């Protein structure tokens, strides 16, 4: 990584855009299909310049037919392409669950390894803004439950680029989930093509008192909380999980082994969420905790429209700080 590269800043959405440009240039079998690929209203600037460079033949906007279009991406992958299908909201993707869950996830196994499915199923979490229950959902826990799927949720521009490239290069169906709330975040992003291992988390902050394992947008809230906790004399170790399937069990257990305390911060609902899986991994381990695990998630409630309700619906750094303080009340 050259120092020049280190300085080039890119927004999260343009980091995805760069990954798409680079992979489509590198590999002719890569193509992008989905609703709104030519409309910034749908996908921000993630697809900027793709049609101009690669043509409508490889960058395909579609009618409102999530089931057939998702299936087409899967089928094209079976026929040897590396497909990327985008859903501008996870809520819309539910129509396409059959090709994802029944077909893509099972295909390689049920055909005894004779045909793989290198498809990226890219779904955007698009919430807030008084959009209500059908325009807000984060469904990553459902995908994580399905054998045969991998699920990545980058929180930073650097990871967004690296994980999009890894997802495209993977020979299996990968669900790539981002969040419109992250799109304008900026950081240094190398110009080169690089990939990040799927299934590997990263420690964003070293600490000793408690571990905060966070996902996607909540990784930022966790980092903010970490800074403020420091001032309060609490040393939090913060893990950005980056992938939710497979989970980086090692990084979680190593950290919790050290700190003895765990907060999980997720962008999804509580019950049966990925936060439960993380808690279970620790509960299954021989680690003896200093205090019970705490999950910070959406409550088990559909997303409300009203903005005031939204404010208490979506957790943030304050929820983390409060819970961390509670856990540390019994410190030492």
């Amino acid at each position: 990584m050259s120092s020049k590269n280190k300085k080039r800043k890119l927004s999260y959405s343009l980091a995805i855009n760069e990954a798409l440009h680079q992979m489509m240039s590198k590999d002719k079998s890569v193509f992008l299909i989905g609703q709104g690929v030519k409309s910034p209203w749908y996908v921000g600037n993630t697809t900027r310049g793709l049609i101009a460079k690669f043509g409508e033949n490889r960058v395909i906007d579609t009618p409102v037919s999530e089931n057939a279009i998702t299936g087409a991406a899967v089928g094209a992958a079976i026929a040897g392409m590396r497909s990327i299908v985008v859903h501008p909201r996870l809520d819309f993707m539910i129509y396409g669950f059959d090709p994802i869950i029944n077909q893509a996830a099972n295909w390689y196994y049920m055909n005894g390894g004779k045909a793989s499915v290198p498809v990226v199923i890219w779904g955007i979490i698009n919430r807030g803004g008084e959009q209500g229950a059908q325009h807000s959902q984060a469904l990553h826990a459902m995908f994580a439950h399905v054998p045969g799927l991998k699920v990545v949720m980058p929180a930073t521009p650097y990871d967004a680029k690296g994980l999009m490239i890894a997802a495209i290069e993977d020979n299996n169906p990968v669900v790539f989930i981002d969040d419109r709330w992250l799109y304008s975040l900026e950081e240094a992003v190398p110009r080169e093509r690089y990939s990040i291992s799927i299934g590997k988390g990263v420690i964003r902050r070293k600490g000793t008192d408690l571990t905060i394992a966070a996902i996607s947008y909540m990784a930022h809230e966790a980092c903010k909380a970490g800074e403020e906790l420091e001032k309060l004399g609490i040393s939090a170790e913060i893990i950005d999980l980056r992938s939710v399937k497979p989970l980086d069990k090692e990084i979680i257990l190593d950290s919790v082994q050290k700190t003895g305390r765990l907060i999980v911060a997720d962008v999804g609902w509580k019950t049966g969420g990925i936060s439960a899986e993380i808690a279970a991994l620790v509960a299954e381990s021989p680690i003896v905790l200093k205090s019970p695990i705490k999950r910070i998630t959406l409550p088990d409630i559909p997303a409300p429209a009203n903005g005031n309700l939204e404010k208490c619906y979506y957790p943030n750094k304050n929820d983390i700080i409060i819970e961390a303080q509670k856990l540390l009340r019994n410190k030492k």
Partner: protein
Amino acid sequence: MIYSKSILRSIYYTLLQIRLCEESLIAPISNGEVKCPVHLCTGQEAVAAGVCAALSPTDYVFGNHRSHGHFLAHGGTIKELIAEVYCKETGCSRGRGGSMHLCKPATGMLGSAPIVAGTISLALGSALASAICQDKKVTVSFFGDGATGEGVLYESFNFAALKKLPIIFACENNLYSTHMSIRECRANGTIYKSGLPFSVPSFRVDGNDVLAVFAVAKKAALACRSGKGPVFIEFMTYRFRGHVGADDNVQGVHTDIRPKKEIAGWFKKDPIRRFERYLLNGVFGKAELLKIKEQVDAEINDAFNFALKSPCPQESDLGKYVFKK
């Protein structure tokens, strides 16, 4: 066809309610006072007004994301609507839904929701309920041309025809689905014909001619009520505003790709001006129409006052309404 003055007045009243209501939202949307996504139906009023005029007050209606018109035409009040658009506790969905979730079960407005085509099968279900209970109710499912891309529409055609369910599939073909022209969405733009292979009697009507809409809907409702089964109607119309909000191009991302000329052409086909010309041709005088307009204006004024001073849902009620006791 000769219509009574009272029905003509009522249709005009509904048309104006919808138009003026929609236009009254332009300012608060544009200045950020209204925050939830609003899909205005300005230009398409005649479909909601004409179809619902053909219904009885106990019939069922399901809408979609662009349902202010459906709501107002089937029993909803401007007050409940504006309050919901402001996400207030006094809104028809108590501020939990916003503009895309309008419902008033008491008048048969069973609901609206923005998952494209998602309410079509729900409407199939209320029609099924009516078939089971033999209550002679008719269900109308309103959806856009974009929704014809979703397979559930064809499943619903088939099942409705198979069981002769009393449902009117009402497609508002405004030629666009967000940023896509219908030519980019369908190889064949003649939507109404897709009901035929399922043996659903299917028609195409000028959706900006409220009396033509009314006439076809009356016929369809009669067919439904007499056990003949579903009807599919494609209404040709056009939206005067952005896909969401006032103007897609003003709002930043420049996604209104509709040709200026096309837009101008449709402005000339304004369904309300058209109906006014008809009414002024011997039914009502200018003064009478103006009086109606003033009445609606006053209603809207009241509604905004009501909405603005209404409380928001309380934070302590966040978890209310997840489950019914």
